[in-house]
């Protein structure tokens, strides 16, 4: 009996160790299997587009916070209902986990001669549009393939050489408690003065944890620098940041908690909600959404300064080598329709990608004063350097 038992234990131990070994092996196998699947799916897509009976499935990779996912979860069924011949497969990559890898995948697929790596549509910010422009990854779009592009501001399209669709945008603005602040500052210098006159009533978040704090820091650094410096990633500018960092350091003791920088964009919004501060830099869409839900007090107002904080569109890009472009164009056209844009405004409170004049009057009114005047900072790799310097020169003081 004992022997039986022992044998059994021995067997199961062996089985376990083999299964672990097999696990290691199968990871490698998976790779080759999936690449095989890739090539086979390439051939199936060819047959797909030939026969229109089966719907074409496009793979849409996007990244962002939960609200971006909710938006596409709502828009995709609307689109599929109208276009039964196209299916949109959403691949959501939570922000912070892998926007770069998605780009790298498209790039790697191109270099390996494997088309677009099964990615037919990709959503991201300006840095990736310009990077893809250099790498020649994106398809050039025109009003003949996507008619609704005519509704988009032509200057915005020129900025990206027609390689991407700006389907929504938002900007960093000053959000303030209008009960305490009657005349909000209009320029950055006025903001600094306000901070000094109202100790511990202003907060910006740790710039490495959210765009609103980051924008406050970047705007301060580039305050006295040439206007076009904000579009350059030349490291030579780093020495000119010194004055800006000195200002930020000097402001430290006047900020919330004598120099506490909450984490994440939401961190400062929480402080505004609880009344611990009266003014913060914040993303317009977050403020509008939380006002709508009643999370922020109704007395909260927004003000853009001149020259403006960072802001800009989020873009949709079509990889040049995608084989399902016709279907993707249909989808893009739908996204830019006033109907879809209205959904976007309602769920995400972003500024519409198409010109406001194409939108209903009430939506036009809600964006008065904040949907313009922002600037598009595009300093590339330098923003990492800014975060690093901020950590050592401002936070650690």
């Amino acid at each position, binding site marked *: 009996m004992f022997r039986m038992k*022992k044998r059994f234990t021995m067997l199961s131990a062996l089985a376990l*160790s083999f299964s672990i070994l097999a696990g290691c092996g199968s990871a490698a196998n998976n790779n080759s299997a999936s690449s095989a699947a890739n090539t086979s799916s390439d051939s199936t897509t060819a047959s797909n587009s030939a026969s229109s009976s089966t719907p074409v499935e496009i793979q849409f990779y996007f990244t962002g916070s939960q609200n971006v996912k909710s938006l596409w979860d709502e828009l995709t069924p609307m689109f599929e209902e109208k276009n039964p011949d196209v299916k949109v497969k959403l691949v959501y990559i939570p922000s912070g986990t892998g926007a770069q890898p998605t780009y790298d995948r498209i790039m790697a697929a191109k270099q390996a001669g494997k088309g677009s790596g099964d990615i037919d549509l990709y959503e991201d910010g300006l840095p990736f549009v310009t990077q893809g422009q250099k790498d020649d990854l994106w398809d050039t779009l025109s009003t003949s393939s996507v008619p609704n592009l005519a509704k988009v501001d032509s200057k915005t399209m020129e900025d990206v050489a027609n390689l991407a669709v700006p389907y929504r945008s938002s900007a960093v603005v000053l959000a303030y408690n209008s009960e305490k602040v009657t005349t909000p500052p209009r320029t950055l210098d006025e903001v600094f003065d306000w901070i000094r006159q109202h100790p511990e009533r202003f907060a910006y978040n740790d710039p490495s944890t959210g765009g609103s704090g980051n924008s406050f820091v970047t705007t301060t650094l580039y305050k006295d620098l040439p206007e076009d410096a904000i579009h350059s990633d030349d490291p030579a500018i780093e020495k000119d940041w010194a004055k800006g960092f000195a200002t930020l350091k000097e402001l430290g003791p006047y900020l919330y908690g004598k120099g506490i920088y909450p984490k994440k964009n939401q961190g400062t919004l929480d402080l505004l909600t609880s009344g*611990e501060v009266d003014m913060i830099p914040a993303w317009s869409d977050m403020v509008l959404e939380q006002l709508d839900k009643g999370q922020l007090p109704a007395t909260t107002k927004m003000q853009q300064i001149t020259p403006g904080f960072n802001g800009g569109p989020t873009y949709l890009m079509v990889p040049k080598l995608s084989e399902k472009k016709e279907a993707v164009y249909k989808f893009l056209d739908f996204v830019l329709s006033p109907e879809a844009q209205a959904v976007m405004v309602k769920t995400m409170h972003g500024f519409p990608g198409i010109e406001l004049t194409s939108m209903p009057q009430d939506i036009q009114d809600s964006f008065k004063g904040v949907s313009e005047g922002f600037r598009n900072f595009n300093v590339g790799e330098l923003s990492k350097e800014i975060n690093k310097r901020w950590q050592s020169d401002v936070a650690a003081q």
Partner: protein
Amino acid sequence: MRKEVKMGIFGLCLVIPSFLLLSVIVVIPIILSFIESLRDEFGGYGLSRYVYLFTDEGMRANIVFTLQVTIVSCVIVLAVSYALAVYMRFSTGRLVDLIRKTYMIPIFIPGVIATYGLINLLGNHGWLSRWLLLFGGTLPRIIFDQKGIIIANLWFNIPFTTMLLSSALAGIPNAVIESAKDIGAGRLRIFFRIVLPLSYKTFLVAVTFVFMGVIGSFTAPFLVGPNAPQMLGVSMEQVFSVFQEREQAAAISFFTFLLCSLLGYFYIRSMVKEETAKA
């Protein structure tokens, strides 16, 4: 086949699964990150990442801060847990029953939620400060401060440590204690001559657990800690995903590993000593 050989093979079979698992998820990653941490900016190999770790003022402050938080947390957690465990072992009554039933609750509350609870309770405009205000007192800054991290660590670590120590104390036979009492040993004497020596080994295990848990913690320090200095876990995340300096992050993680293995060394040494003493 001889019996010893058979037994040897049997033993190996039992060890292989855990050994494989250990090497795939622990040993190999450690070696890889050590190699990674040796790469300098110019693609060569050297100790420059470690030099930075100890010469950069901010980094040095982070290390000191982390060790401070860890040691203070360890001392308080173990003192509270041990007291609680001893109390539950040797006392009876309704209060003890209540503690026994409820002390494990924090284990079942997700870390992020507990941390937000703490922020709401202890924050600048939290409940506690509002109550204090009624009596004219003010709360010192707890959230966004070292104190906040330590309090969060107490919340996370006390239940499990108490559980560990309770089981060790439950293993002390009543007969031993009663016979000591019979020959006239006082309470303190019983504690220091019998209870402490018999639970000392588990105490060491608990120290190791708390130390490693605290030194590598991320959620609470990220949410309630100050901007600078940071706990090593928070700094590691920042260096890795914000500054995108993988090599530097690898160096920090390897250094954290060294700190942990130092403690592990003392723990294993005391275990081995005991084994040889028995044999």
